[in-house]
């Protein structure tokens, strides 16, 4: 049994901070460096690294982020985990009257602060400091260039410097927090440590629609938000360190072009996501996987193809970590949706689960929206789906704001899609949008998920059809087909017309068939009469198809059409229409196709 970590948003953000590279930090500063000494695990110096910039005429020292430099005037005051050679090694190029004291102070201070910390890097440093004698400098690998330069340390085989190891960072930060004196320490509800309290929380920048200067995720800016007479940060005891770290983590993820955010806001919600894995490579690979899975627009086709292939295999029951071992087993994935509310940010959704579970849900989503022929080339992102199916003029601004967040939520949790998605789709169709495969896909997704809720192991036979299913027993679906065939008859008879049957009747036919279909059938008879004379081959095909559909719905007379179709049936109608329209008809030869709408109607019979 493994323990699942399902803590709050701030806790997860703080853990992300720990994994960030180049993270700004409390108690750190930029200092110029020349050298690093490489230690093995037992503290023996095995090598030295020249950190200088060699591109100029003379080697130049470069800036590195290190534990904050102490202010040195006349006294002896060593730095933590780094310093110049007189402090670190007890050697200097000049006369050096008090080099010995300086070195002793460095050893003493550093040993004190790293005492009791079980970290390979710090233990190696400890051993080094305990065993070092200045004479050792005369032999390999040390070089005279190192004298008086700033020197740091690295553990052999580690990509980080010793002061960059998490254990060392913790020590540095603890010191930074202590600076104001230990008298007012509080319990931190994020980290569980006792430390200096944060009164005001950091401003978060980059959420779409929020104030440019930044808005607060944690704030108590009105009386009604406080409890028990507490002011500001007292309401939620959080340490300065935790507040700083979650702020830095969130701000870095929200930056434009960051890998961890969905580039465009989804509705009014800006979405960030990140993975948590046993090591950094796996976490970054999982971030990249998530980036494509959550927003495939404008991404490299080959990469999207790879992800969609992976999701296909997941939907067949394979575990994600067996397909993509680089993502790591048990990797967790977080998705945070933030919406602006004046000076504050509100959490629209917060999802945390294993990456495996997210992949399973995504795979199920792509199964549920599948229609044939697919209207998309690459896997559509949730954003694109919403734009294509619910937005007027397909403009991002016109998406019903809450809806997209709800759709994304449903996609990632595997729960039912919002029924409002279907009603928005129907509304767009009634408003006169051309019914496309996108609409059909959305309708199918909502309906299929509803069926799935009742029967989680739904078979293909019971499912809402992906492609034309002539025997699907649903009145909405069959009426949709019927409408498509009559439209075909009109096209065959008249070619392109300014206002086609679809423009005129689609919405009404799907909502109130009984009052519209008689008209459609009457017109259809006239169209068929024309087709029989002009395109005899087609008239046979169309009539055969009509007969087949009428057998399925078997209305004895036109009045037996249903008076109205409810929302779900209207969805089926759109789906049936799309399937019928894009399907090959019975008896249609492979090279037999109708002249395009724009073509002249005098075209030859096929």
């Amino acid at each position, binding site marked *: 049994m493994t*323990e699942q*970590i399902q803590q709050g948003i701030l806790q997860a953000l703080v853990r992300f901070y720990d994994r960030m590279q180049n993270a700004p930090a409390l108690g750190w500063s930029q200092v110029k460096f020349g050298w690093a000494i490489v230690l093995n695990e037992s503290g023996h110096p095995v090598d030295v690294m020249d950190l200088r910039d060699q591109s100029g005429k003379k080697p130049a020292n470069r800036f590195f982020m290190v534990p904050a430099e102490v202010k040195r005037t006349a006294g002896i005051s060593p730095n933590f985990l780094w310093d110049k050679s007189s402090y670190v090694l007890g050697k200097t190029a000049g006369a050096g009257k008090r080099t010995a004291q300086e070195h002793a102070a460095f050893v003493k201070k550093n040993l004190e602060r790293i005492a009791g910390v079980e970290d390979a890097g710090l233990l190696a440093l400890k051993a080094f400091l305990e065993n070092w004698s200045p004479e050792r400098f005369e032999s390999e690998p040390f070089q005279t260039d190192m004298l008086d330069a700033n020197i740091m340390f690295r553990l052999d085989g580690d990509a980080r410097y010793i002061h960059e190891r998490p254990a060392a960072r913790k020590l540095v930060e603890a010191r930074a927090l202590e600076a104001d004196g230990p008298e007012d320490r509080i*319990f931190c509800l994020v980290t*569980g440590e006792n430390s200096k309290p944060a009164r005001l929380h950091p401003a978060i920048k980059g959420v779409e629609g929020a104030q440019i200067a930044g808005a607060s995720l944690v*704030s108590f800016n009105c009386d009604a*938000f406080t*409890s028990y007479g507490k002011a500001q940060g007292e309401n939620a005891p959080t340490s300065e360190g935790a507040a700083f770290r979650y702020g830095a983590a969130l701000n870095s993820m929200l930056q434009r072009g960051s890998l961890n955010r969905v580039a465009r806001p989804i509705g009014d919600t800006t979405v960030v996501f990140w993975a948590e894995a046993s090591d950094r490579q796996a976490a970054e690979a999982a971030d990249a996987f998530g980036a494509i899975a959550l927003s495939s627009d404008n991404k490299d086709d080959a990469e999207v193809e790879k992800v969609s292939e992976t999701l296909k295999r997941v939907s067949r029951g394979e575990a994600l970590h067996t397909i993509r071992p680089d993502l790591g087993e048990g990797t967790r994935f977080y998705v945070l949706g933030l919406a602006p509310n004046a000076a504050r940010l509100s959490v629209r959704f917060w999802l945390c689960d294993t990456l495996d579970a997210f992949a399973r849900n995504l795979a199920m989503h792509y199964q549920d929206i599948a229609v044939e022929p697919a209207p998309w080339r690459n896997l559509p992102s949730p954003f694109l789906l919403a734009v294509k199916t619910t937005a007027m003029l397909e403009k991002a601004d016109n998406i019903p704001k809450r809806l997209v967040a709800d759709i994304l939520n449903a996609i990632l949790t595997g729960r039912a899609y919002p029924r409002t998605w279907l009603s928005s789709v129907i509304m767009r169709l009634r408003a006169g949008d051309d019914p496309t495969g996108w609409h059909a896909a959305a309708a199918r997704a909502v309906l299929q998920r509803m069926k799935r809720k009742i029967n989680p192991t739904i078979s293909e036979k019971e499912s809402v059809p992906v492609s034309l299913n002539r025997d699907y027993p649903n009145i909405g679906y069959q009426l949709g087909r019927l409408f498509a065939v009559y439209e075909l008859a009109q096209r065959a008879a008249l070619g392109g017309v300014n206002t086609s049957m679809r423009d005129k009747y689609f919405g009404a036919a799907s909502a109130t068939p009984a009052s519209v279909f008689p008209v459609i059938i009457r017109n259809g008879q006239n169209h068929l009469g024309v087709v029989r004379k002009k395109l005899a081959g087609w008239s046979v095909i169309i009539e055969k198809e009509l007969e087949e559909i009428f057998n399925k719905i078997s209305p004895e007379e036109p009045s037996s059409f249903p008076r109205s179709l409810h929302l779900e049936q209207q969805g089926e109608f759109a789906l049936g229409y799309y399937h019928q329209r894009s399907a090959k008809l019975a008896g249609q030869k492979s090279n037999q196709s109708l002249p395009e709408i724009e073509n002249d109607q005098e075209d030859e019979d096929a």
Partner: protein
Amino acid sequence: MGIRLHIWGERACFTRPELKAERVSYDVITPSAARGILEAIHWKPAIRWHIDRIHVLKPIQFGSFRRNEVSAKANARNAATAMKAGTTAGLGLVAEENRQQRAAMILLDVAYVVEAHFTMTDRAGPDDNPAKHISTFNRRAERGQCFHRPCLGTREFPAEFQLLPEEAALPHSDFLLQTQAAGDVDLGWMLHDIDFTNGKISKFFRARIHNGIIDVPPFDSPELAA
């Protein structure tokens, strides 16, 4: 003197203190919210409820919405002045002038079994004894009586409740069905209760769901942090 109470509801919001302006709920009911539900059914100054264990019966699901609320609170000092003056002038709070739109991320479809006991406080009189209070609680809970409608975190999410008699089996748990494979859940630090005798300090405990059960440490436990 232990009791078991089955509580459930369509929605719940056990607001996290760090995210309470734009509310985000904890994943499960907090011990103090559970105490509030028991107190709604039976409470006297003579007794104090202690939550021992919380069984989580439904998978954790979130939903969110935004609504109009107010930014100000009624002022206690003004109310005292008004009482003295004998007039309510200037006491009102006009909602339209103090509008605040707030979002809330709440729990959907929750159900818990709360195991609790009570202790007698120093305000217990000569007539008070545990047997009396336990039978009062059991009688009231069985009949569905309460002093005020118990709620799941906030007043707008009412709690349904049913007494679970000693010999009765636990209700069916969907939570275990869905979460078993994943093992235990570490929920991080969670509010335990407010220490009203000591400067209204919030006390926190490390919440873990083990086999669908959260063990709640007692109020004076060293595991609690404040």
